[in-house]
Every structure is written in structure tokens, then in C-alpha cells.
């Protein structure tokens, strides 16, 4: 059959542009959704970053006569680590914390969260104690003020008591090398 040219098949850049816009929008939407799928919904950003660490006063886990308070965070860079004996990822994290416990650049302050003292001290006795001190918070009294919603979580607090970062989930080598170590170095240089 003889082919006839239809009027609409004439090349028209303007039409082509308008035909491609929906496609481009669709691709952009798909890209956005794919990006969203890759995000972990459990990682909720903390509104406390950049704010002063909340006031708290908790008994020390292994030395109940002593109190751990916000004042203990002043003057030193601190990793405030939320943990519990019932939390299995905390156990995995424990080894990483042990490796960091000798680092003189910061102190590690534990927030023993919704735990039982006997179980928590047993963990420290059996697997080592990376903490310089441990606030014992079985009833989530301090935890609520820190916006804690799971364990492990780790807050990086600078020398002036300002929360500079919150890490949700266990600290491992990668997290330390890529995120926490550079941050600690930066805080150290800030003086």
C-alpha cells in the first residue's frame, strides 16, 4: 500500500516537548519514590540536634550512691550511648565501644535504658565495661527527655553540652570511621 503522510507526524518541537513533559514528571516521581524506599523509616531525625542536652539526674548503675547528671557532660566531648541488656544489637555494638573506650578524645556515657540493674551489670562484668559512667534509667524518665525510642542510640555531645549528632542503631567500624570519628575530630578542633 502506498504510504500517505499524516499532518500530525510533522516534526513539531513544541508538541514533542509537551508530549515529553508527563514522561519526565513520571520519571521524577518514580525516582523520588525509589529514593524513599531506600530510606530507613526507623531513622527519625532528632529535633534535639543543635540543642543543649536535656537535664537529667540518674543513679549510677554500678555505684547507686552517685548521680549521673547533665553536669557530667560538660567540659568533655561525650558519646551518650543508650543501651540495655535485652537489646541484641547493643551486644554487637558493645565490641565496637570496647575498642573506643581507650580513646582519650571523648568519654562514653551509658544510658542504661528500661533495663534491670542485675542484668545490666552482668553484661558489663562478662563482656567488659566501655563506659566511663552509666545512668540507670529503668523507668525511661531521662529517656523521654532525650527523645529515645529504641536501643541502641548514640548522641554526640560537645564540650558545651550541646547535642551535635544522633546516631540510631549500633555503632560499628564503618559508622565510626565515616561519621563519628570525623565529627569528634571536628569537635576537638572547635575547642
Amino acid at each position: 500500500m502506498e504510504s500517505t503522510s499524516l499532518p500530525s507526524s510533522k516534526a513539531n518541537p513544541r508538541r514533542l516537548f509537551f508530549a515529553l513533559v508527563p514522561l519526565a514528571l513520571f520519571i521524577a516521581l518514580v525516582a523520588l519514590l525509589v529514593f524513599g524506599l531506600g530510606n530507613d523509616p526507623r531513622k527519625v531525625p532528632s529535633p534535639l540536634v543543635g540543642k543543649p542536652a536535656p537535664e537529667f539526674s540518674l543513679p549510677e548503675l554500678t555505684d547507686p550512691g552517685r548521680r549521673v547528671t547533665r553536669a557530667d557532660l560538660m567540659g568533655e566531648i561525650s558519646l551518650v550511648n543508650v543501651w540495655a541488656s535485652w537489646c541484641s544489637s547493643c551486644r554487637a555494638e558493645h565490641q565496637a565501644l570496647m575498642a573506643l573506650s581507650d580513646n582519650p578524645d571523648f568519654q562514653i556515657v551509658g544510658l542504661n535504658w528500661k533495663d534491670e540493674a542485675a542484668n545490666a551489670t552482668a553484661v558489663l562484668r562478662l563482656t567488659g565495661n566501655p563506659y566511663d559512667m552509666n545512668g540507670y534509667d529503668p523507668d525511661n524518665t531521662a529517656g523521654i527527655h532525650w527523645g529515645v525510642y529504641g536501643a541502641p542510640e548514640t548522641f554526640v555531645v560537645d564540650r558545651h553540652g550541646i547535642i551535635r549528632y544522633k546516631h540510631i542503631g549500633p555503632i560499628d567500624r564503618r559508622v565510626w570511621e565515616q561519621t563519628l570519628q570525623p565529627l569528634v575530630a571536628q569537635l576537638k578542633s572547635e575547642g
Partner: protein
Amino acid sequence: MSSLIKTLLLSILLLGAASVGAYTLEEFTFDSPRQQEEFRELIGKLRCLVCQNESLAGSQAELAQDLRNEVYKMMRAGQSQDQILDFLIARYGDFVLYDPPLKPSTYLLWFGPFILIGIGAVFMVRALLRKKATPDQGLSDAERQRLADMLANRDGKTDQTS
């Protein structure tokens, strides 16, 4: 097969048990039904951060329990709904609210669907208008002539279109 049926039955039983075990307000006492209603409304607005698709009202998670207690304590201490919400937002972020608040970082979330519908509508209207603007065109004289020729020749030739 029977094990499959057993599993199914067990799941149904467990589902039933879960809904029976759902959280009630009985552990809290209130001064007035109004206060109770207010409490119920408030914890319905708040999200349980552990089990993210449940509200504080519906969740059995321990953290939800803690936060319910906290909300209850604050209410009993005479704090307003807004004060309690602000307290929780300051610690857990906007995410603790089921309805995201309207602010620049959520404009896309709130208005995005309407923008998409708007863009779609523009394209649809354009397409419809174009269709109207180009009605079926009649045949030109030359085409009419060609058609007549083809019809006249048809009887003498075999069908070539198949």
C-alpha cells in the same frame, strides 16, 4: 493439609487474642468523662515511634506505654493539649504527630498531590481542545477523484488490501 488448617486456625485465634488484648483506658482514672475524652483524643493524635503505623492509643509497645503515662501525668498536672504536644514534638520531632504540620519542609507533602492533579488537568484539557480544533476533515477534490477511480477499478482487480 491438616497442618495448614491448624496454622490457619491458630492465626485466626491469635488475631482474635490480639484484638481482645488491645489497650484500654482502664488503667487510668479521670476526674471527668471530658478529661478522659481529651486524653483519648490526644493519644490518638500521637504516633508510637517503635511501631510506626500505630497511634499511642492503639499500641502495646513499652515505649507507647511510657509515653501514655507521661501524657497522662502532664494532663493531670493541668497542662493543655498544646503544651503536651509541644513537649513531645521538642523531644521526638514532628514525626510523633500523625498529621504532619504545615510548614515549608512539608509543603511538597501537602500540596504535591494537588500540583500533580493540576498538571494532569492542564494536559488533559489541552488534549481535548486539540481534538476539538481538528475535526474530521472532509476529502479534498483530488482525494475524491482518486477514491472514485479506485472504486471504478475495483471490480476488474483482485483485492490488494489483505
